[in-house]
């Protein structure tokens, strides 16, 4: 038994390094997507202390809108722009209808409100787009769908080009976001608001504009995630499940940290794949991916209650 846990998995890894690399690559790609969703969470949490549960459904909603528009006969790139418009309208209406009346309420109330938004979007989306699985318009958007076959160590490693594209786009998005947050006026305003609401308000930063902006950026991130994930697994409400995956990523990385979200996402993506393949399937009957990330995050949190990169929690009486 101990041998199965401690030795056999590692022996397997060494025996088939190409398979190990394949597993790690798969993990990396899903990790990137977790990180993207977590990024949406972090942005909103930093600027408004709202734990936005609706980020996952925003991914689904964006992807569905895109595919739905394309099916109506709108050219692919025009649908992307129209989807962005829809996400902007969504951001404005969420701010106007839901958040503004709830300013200053306890965190848990705002959290519940985002769950309310989630339910609303699920119902709304299913009525408009139907519940069935849709195929993402990958090639129409100019994303290559071939795959590269590499042969490291005399083995076989398959890299799908759409995954590579997803990784590249995600990296660009993150870089762009970092530049935006650190170098532009708006970005600085977002960070200022995150640091101290009242101080930010008193120097003339508009809370409402920033909130709309932040939710819109979260919407853009949602669209990118939706395209990337939809290309892998199709677009349906089952995608919502990946939103839950972003939660342990947040815990691991810290609720306020963009770096944390990315590193946490990659770690969880790869570790959960490794665990599933080498420990979960042979020893535990598989499907461990549903909980592994949470348990991992829980263990890390026991040692660092604010996550790996979160702001240190200082409590005063």
């Amino acid at each position, binding site marked *: 038994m101990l041998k199965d846990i401690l030795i056999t998995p590692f022996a397997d890894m060494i025996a088939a390094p190409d398979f190990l690399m394949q597993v790690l690559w798969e993990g990396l790609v899903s990790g990137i997507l977790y990180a993207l969703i977590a990024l949406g969470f972090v942005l909103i949490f930093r600027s408004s202390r709202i*734990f936005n549960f609706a980020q996952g459904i925003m991914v689904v909603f964006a992807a569905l809108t895109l595919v739905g528009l394309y099916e109506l006969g709108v050219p692919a790139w025009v649908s992307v722009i129209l989807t962005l418009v829809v996400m902007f309208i969504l951001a404005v209406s969420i701010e106007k209808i839901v958040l503004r009346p709830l300013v200053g309420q306890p965190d848990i109330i705002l959290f519940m409100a985002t769950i*309310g938004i989630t*339910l609303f*979007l699920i119902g709304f989306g299913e009525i408009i787009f139907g519940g069935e699985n849709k195929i993402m318009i990958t090639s129409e958007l100019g994303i290559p769908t071939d795959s590269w076959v590499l042969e490291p160590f005399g083995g076989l490693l398959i890299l799908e080009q759409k995954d590579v594209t997803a990784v590249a786009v995600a990296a660009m998005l993150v870089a762009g976001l970092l530049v935006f947050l650190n170098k532009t006026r708006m970005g600085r305003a977002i960070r200022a608001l995150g640091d101290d609401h009242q101080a930010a308000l008193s120097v003339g930063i508009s809370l409402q504009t920033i909130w709309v902006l932040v939710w819109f950026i979260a919407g853009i991130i949602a669209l990118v995630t939706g395209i990337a994930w939809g290309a892998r697994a199709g677009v349906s409400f089952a995608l919502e499940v990946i939103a839950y995956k972003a939660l*342990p990523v*947040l815990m691991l990385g810290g609720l306020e940290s963009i770096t944390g979200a990315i590193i946490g996402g990659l770690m969880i993506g790869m570790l959960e794949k490794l665990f599933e393949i080498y420990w979960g399937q042979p020893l535990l009957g598989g499907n461990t991916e*549903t*909980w592994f990330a949470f348990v991992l995050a829980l263990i890390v949190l*026991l040692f660092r209650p604010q996550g790996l990169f979160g702001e240190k929690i200082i409590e005063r*009486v």
Partner: protein
Amino acid sequence: MLYRTAGQFKTSYIKDQALFPVRQDAILLMIILAFAWVIMPLTASEFTFQTLLIPILIYSLAAMGLNILTGFAGQLSLGTGAFMGVGAYACYKMITIIPEMNPVVAILLSGFFSAGIGVVFGIPSLRIKGFYLAIATLAAQFFLVWLFEKWAWLYNYNASGAIQVPNMDMFGITVGGPRAESITQYYVVLAIVSLLTVLCINLTRGNLGRTWKATRDMDIAAELIGINLMKSKLTAFAVSSYVIGVAGALFVFMWRGAAEPNLFDIPLSFRVLFIAIIGGLGSVMGNYLGAILIVGLPVVLNTVPEAIGLDIKSATVEHLNIMIVGSLIIFFLIIEPHGLARLWALIREKLIIWPFPH
């Protein structure tokens, strides 16, 4: 006029500390109890029992369990569904191992199993706070549901992977399983729910409840005045999980009749959380109000299109329901973030001084 408290003097401390110091409250409660115990069972149809009365009671109990943890002790939990599952599976194992066991005793005992698991998953709460803790409880949620699916011993190696409630007799009356009548099940549920409600009201008023409230309001301050945080948080997890576990056992044994692991998945947790929050955190009565709203609303909504003669597909109705429930949650949060219980408290306040505005 109706709610005037003038003239009701309390001449002893015992009277002042009574559960219902205001006479009108006691009368109102009597009326509600009379309805619940006598009038409803006499008049309700099979449909009402199965879609409204029984589920409302069970959901209120589950919400009350969660409310103890979240509303009174301030520890946000998203793992309610899984703890209900622990109660249900524990009850199932007890009933199948000892078939002659009294079902009510089995249901009450099954809460202890979920209490134990609840304490284990509550240990991180000593280090982790706020949303981090909420996500940590999701670990319990996903892990336990996975366990229900993979650990075949739990469902007696059924091919279906589901648990099926056998016929259970108590004093010669069938109370559970396919042969049981709704009215008997209703009374069993009502009895257990009433018992636990009285227990919870008293617990939250007593020493333990005050410790919980202090922990909720500011745990560092509570620690400084000499409250043992570990004891306070872990007892909250234990009591809360006990109540939730009993609710879970009732959920399967007195209502659903059968359960698959995914029944206890995260939507169930959220449903209970909605009830607790819409009803009002930190209130016992709120759970009932919340459950009436959240359980009753879809039932009402389902009958509306038929009643006004609209022909909508049932799938669309379901999606519309989700949408409406979502918007109502937001609506209620906006009009009264402290829940329906606060709304009632405000109404009561107004009634006391009515017809004068001040």
